[in-house]
């Protein structure tokens, strides 16, 4: 079996050269942003939040590559600094959704019966609420901020993980090794942890990749609306929203954070798209629905 898989793989990569290249570019881009997020404070020419490091609203120049904003802050430094909250928000949100969604999904699929009915209804319910409305409602209860915005996005993403975890669990429930473990007197928690979780890991990993881009976009949108990290800190969404009034006179203030953000989301989208083809060529979209 494994030799067959080994023999098939090279021929596949020859037939799909684009796929490998696309994935590599995306991974390279994401690593680039990770480096910016980790080393950002040491790389930037100016402190991102320091006022009046140059003239206000100066266009891109040799000293300020991306220009300066209305408070005289260096735009390049701020664009680099914004990589950190952007990546953290996506990772927090998806981790939260993955953890809770997986537990719900496995429990529903494995326990079945009444549990399945109740948990599935709950998931359907969450799914039926418009995403942004749900996120904004959660944020009005909890207040804005990086962690709270991530949790709000995480709640929105839970049903996607729960559905795929439940479906995959149901698929392997009929396998002999589950019955064998039961006959050996293993507890339900043990079976779920040792047999089900490892065997449904691959669709979950793919779902994670797909949802990173959704979470990234949602976080920037919430930050644009003022629910993200608090004002002096740099953040793509809030940088773009606070530059809206200068859009017509000093467009670079909108252009640079937009480009930085779009490239990041594009990298996540490409990874998600490549992964999606592996999961199931049908009924998946970039929204992960």
């Amino acid at each position, binding site marked *: 079996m494994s030799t067959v898989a080994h023999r098939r793989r090279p021929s596949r990569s020859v037939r799909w050269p*684009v796929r490998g290249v*696309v994935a590599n570019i995306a991974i390279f881009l994401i690593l680039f942003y990770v480096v910016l997020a980790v080393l950002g404070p040491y790389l930037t020419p100016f402190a991102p939040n320091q006022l009046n490091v140059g003239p206000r609203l100066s266009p891109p120049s040799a000293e300020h590559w991306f220009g300066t904003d209305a408070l005289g802050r260096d735009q390049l430094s701020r664009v680099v600094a914004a990589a950190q909250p952007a990546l953290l928000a996506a990772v927090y949100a998806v981790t939260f959704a993955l953890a809770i969604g997986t537990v719900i999904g496995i429990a529903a699929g494995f326990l079945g019966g009444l549990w399945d009915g109740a948990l599935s209804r709950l998931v*359907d*319910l969450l799914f*039926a*609420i*418009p*995403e*942004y*409305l*749900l996120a*904004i*409602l*959660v944020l*009005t*209860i909890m207040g804005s901020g990086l962690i709270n915005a991530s949790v709000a996005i995480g709640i929105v993403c839970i049903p996607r993980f729960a559905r795929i975890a439940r479906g995959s669990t149901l698929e392997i429930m009929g396998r002999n090794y589950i019955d064998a473990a039961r006959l050996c007197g293993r507890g339900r928690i043990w079976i779920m942890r040792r047999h089900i979780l490892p065997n449904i890991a691959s669709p979950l990993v793919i779902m994670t990749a797909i949802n990173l*881009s959704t979470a990234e*976009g*949602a976080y*920037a*949108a919430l930050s*644009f*609306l*003022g629910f993200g990290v608090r004002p002096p800190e740099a953040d793509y*969404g809030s940088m*773009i*929203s606070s530059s*809206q009034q200068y*859009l*017509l006179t000093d*467009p670079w203030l*909108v252009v640079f954070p*937009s480009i930085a*953000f*779009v*490239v990041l*989301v*594009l990298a996540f*989208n*490409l990874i998600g*798209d490549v992964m999606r083809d592996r999961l199931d*060529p*049908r*009924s*998946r*979209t*970039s*929204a992960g*629905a």
Partner: protein
Amino acid sequence: MLLYLTRKLAGAFGVLFVLSALIFFAGRGLVPGNLATTLAGPKASQEAIAAIERELGLDLPIYQAYLDWLAGVLRGDLGTSPLSGQANLDVIAQQVPVSLELSLMGLFFAVLIGIPIGVMAANRAGSGTDWGIRLPLLIVFAFPAFVSGSAALYLATHYLTNLYSPSYIPISDNLVANLQTMLLPALAVGIPTAPLVSQMTRSSMIEVLAQPYIATARTNGISEWRITYQYALRAALPPVLTLIGFIFGLLVGGLFIVEQIFSLPGLGRGILSAISNRDFSQVTAQAMVIAGVFILGNLLVDLALPFVDRRILRK
């Protein structure tokens, strides 16, 4: 058919009911501390505060307050804002047409662009052309509404001044002037959504095109164009329709942002300003309307599905 209909209707009401609780408590959570003290001002007497509490029903236990509010909503009374004194229904009645027009136009553009591209990509699946179509779409999809909106506004005010007028005019006053304000915002909502539609169309079409009856149609010499658009596309449509219901929810997010950028007096912008004013009564009313319209949209999609694909009723 009747069973299908009842199930979908019951589901929609259930969701709306649970949402109403969430919305109500979110509204209450909006005001830190005691609302009555805030409203009465810093120097108000105990009696004045108590009077306001009684008037707003704040002295009631919270479940009682919720039930009273829910009863009001069911009667069509969305309450009156204690901050502005305006009936919420009047405020919303002015905002809904703006948002509805924007989202319907956005959806129209998304479908108009998305479906043909998806069909083309499916016909050439796996080839270089397929990726040539998908890659630009993925790039477009990476543009969030606030970037596409900013770009559209910049274009509108710099180059397309004839096509765009910045002040909103209701559709009943002047159709052409109304379209002038709405066209670019609608494109800003619709274009980034189109890739979703085309991806779904593509994957659904690929599956249908692999069916044996498509091969049969080919051997019968039916033209490729007819096979694609009359046989395959129709069979591939149900998941796309379901997605369109889902997109309606995404559009709500687009509304929040695009209305903000273009200063359109719609629901999305209204709810955000109500949140920043801490006008809990208006927020709950607006959120209920958004949720209601979204659920109604999905319900309509569910009811339209059996007409496209009769097999759905048999499940």
